[in-house]
């Protein structure tokens, strides 16, 4: 290993960013091939039986499905490059708008539930690991298992009945109709737009609507973080470098913070990335429990309608998003852990 290794962070990041290009290309090709290999063609699958053969043929032509595969492939790649993800068949909307509106809702929910999961999960995991086998540890472990194992619609239902009802919190949708009506769509992500508008009642309304869905989904994923952080803390508090730091007389608080906790949190970054990518696909159960207009629910609708246009566009964007998240995770990892930047 050379001396320049610790200084090569920019080089590592550049390398990693350049790698994204072939990764996205491979993924796009896979999406294209998988959708073409599937038996039947999109048009007859979606509309067969409802239109006559001539009309179906017309549709196919309009979608370019009569072209040779290589042409279709080229069209697909170049349109993705122009950020044109096609239109949905069933309701004839640009896929980009679906992603923007419903994806924005999903993104807001995902981010908020991650805040819940991390704020609850990491400290609880740390306490459980630090005070292993204490009453607190046992209670936290039990809570972790319960929150992970409990069916989401059940938790959501309990929250609706026992929390929302007495407190008068909303249990459905992203905001009251009046808020949706008054807030100017700038980014089309309501959570951001409402803050841009600076309207205090509207902000309150949106956050109220966000609270319970975020809590439901956040508690579900926080179980993973509790257990992960706990196990890591158990390992790092026994680590050789922790004992060595104690032998140098470093104060207990600093040993715990700087040596044990910091090292324990490195693997958490990777898991955050994985979970985040998973949730971007939409948390269908949470969304339907709280009538949240997210991507998960929308995707289920399109799949039921056999809307290949929508499915292809949405999958394409997912794939790109997952690649970008893994890029982000790698960069954060490299920032935190110097051993990653080989």
């Amino acid at each position, binding site marked *: 290993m*050379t*001396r320049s290794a610790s200084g090569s962070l920019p080089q590592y990041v550049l390398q990693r960013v350049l790698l994204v290009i072939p990764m996205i290309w491979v993924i796009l090709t896979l999406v294209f091939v998988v959708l073409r290999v599937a038996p039947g063609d999109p048009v007859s699958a979606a509309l067969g039986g409802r239109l006559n053969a001539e009309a179906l043929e017309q549709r196919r032509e309009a979608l370019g499905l009569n072209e040779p595969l290589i042409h279709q492939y080229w069209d697909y790649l170049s349109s993705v490059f122009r950020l044109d993800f096609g239109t949905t068949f069933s309701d004839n909307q640009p896929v980009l708008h679906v992603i923007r509106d419903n994806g924005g809702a999903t993104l807001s929910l995902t981010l908020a539930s991650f805040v819940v999961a991390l704020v609850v999960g990491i400290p609880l995991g740390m306490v459980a690991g630090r005070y292993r086998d204490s009453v607190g540890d046992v209670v936290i472990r039990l809570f972790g298992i319960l929150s992970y194992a409990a069916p989401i619609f059940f938790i959501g239902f309990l929250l609706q009945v026992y929390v929302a009802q007495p407190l008068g919190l909303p249990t459905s949708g992203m905001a009251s109709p009046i808020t949706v009506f008054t807030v100017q769509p700038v980014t089309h992500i309501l959570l951001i737009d409402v803050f841009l508008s600076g309207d205090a009642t509207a902000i309150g309304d949106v956050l109220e609507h966000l609270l319970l869905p975020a809590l439901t989904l956040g508690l579900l994923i926080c179980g993973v973080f509790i257990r992960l952080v706990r196990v890591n803390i158990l390992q790092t508090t026994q680590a*050789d*470098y922790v004992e060595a730091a104690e032998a140098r*007389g470093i104060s207990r608080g600093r040993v715990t913070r*700087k040596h044990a906790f910091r*090292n324990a949190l490195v693997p958490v970054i990777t898991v955050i990335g994985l979970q985040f990518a998973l949730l971007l696909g939409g948390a269908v159960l949470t969304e339907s429990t709280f009538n949240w207009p997210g991507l998960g629910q929308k995707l289920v609708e399109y799949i039921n309608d056999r809307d290949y246009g929508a499915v292809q566009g949405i999958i394409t964007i997912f794939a790109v998003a997952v690649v970008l998240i893994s890029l982000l995770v790698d960069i954060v990892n490299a920032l935190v852990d110097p051993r990653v930047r080989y």
Partner: protein
Amino acid sequence: MELVDEVSGNRQPEPVISARDVRVWYGTTRGAIRAVDGVSFDLMPGETLGLVGESGCGKSTLGRGLMGLLPTGAKRDGEVVFKGRDVFSMSAKEAYALRGHELGMIFQEPLTRLNPLMRISEHFEETIRQHEPRLPRAEVQQRAFEVLRVMGIPPTRYRSYPHEFSGGMRQRLMIALALVLRPAFVVADEPTTALDVLVEAQIVGILNDLRRTFDTSLLLITHNVGIVAEACDRVAVMYAGRIVEQGAVADVLGNPQHPYTRELLRSTISLSTTGLEFIPGSPPDLVDPPAGCRFHPRCPDAMQVCAVKDPVDVERPGGGRVECWLRGPEDLVPEGGTRPLKQEELTVADEA
């Protein structure tokens, strides 16, 4: 500044550290494991004491016990006087202040002893700042550079991360970290076991120079008699939680008085070794050690008295102490006690 005086000058005759009847035991479901059972020794300023013995004889536990780094569930007892203060009876806060500053430790596995997320510079800054919080930054760095230079590590590597160093370099970093605050007493727990022989020679050389460069007293824990011969002034031989013989290195290695020391030396491999010598049997169970001398079941010279009465600590002919009935005192041996002990046949299970 008082440190300088100590270094330059008049060596006081009183020991830096003085251990009396130190005991360490681990609680288990089978009962207490008496890992260290009544150990006493003195260490003079700048002196190196080698502590040798088989694996599991309690030598590492003794080193950790002195540092106060025992795992939870371990208990210690006895008296360890360091510069006039009893280390074992001081508060946790006092003990923390002493560790690193006055008592240092070097470990066996250099590869895992540095925090992988922290630069070498951060390790040094953290250590120095902990004990001298008001030291200016430039001074901190200068102190670190000084000790790194002694260890042969160029200052250009100061901002590197642990994974960018080889094993031997990391052990030198650990030594530098242990010495940067000039502790009066350092425990080195098998510092070369994880390293290859060339690096081992280098580290032994560095440890050998310590008393000249830093005037540090060293407790060098090892199972390698060769290192003791090379780097130590005195040696203590440990068996089953007790020091059975201690004295000047040349005396003990040249003229061992305890049968265990003799057998241990005989089993050392050298260039002239033609066959493997070993001591039959294995170290005793420390929950329920044998009565009398703990070595008697494996001792080729065991007498009747050895199986019934604890041996008494007597003066060695060449200076130092030894615990063996062969060396007396004769007036304590009961009638007929010097008859040879009939050893039970070692079963295969015992050997295993």
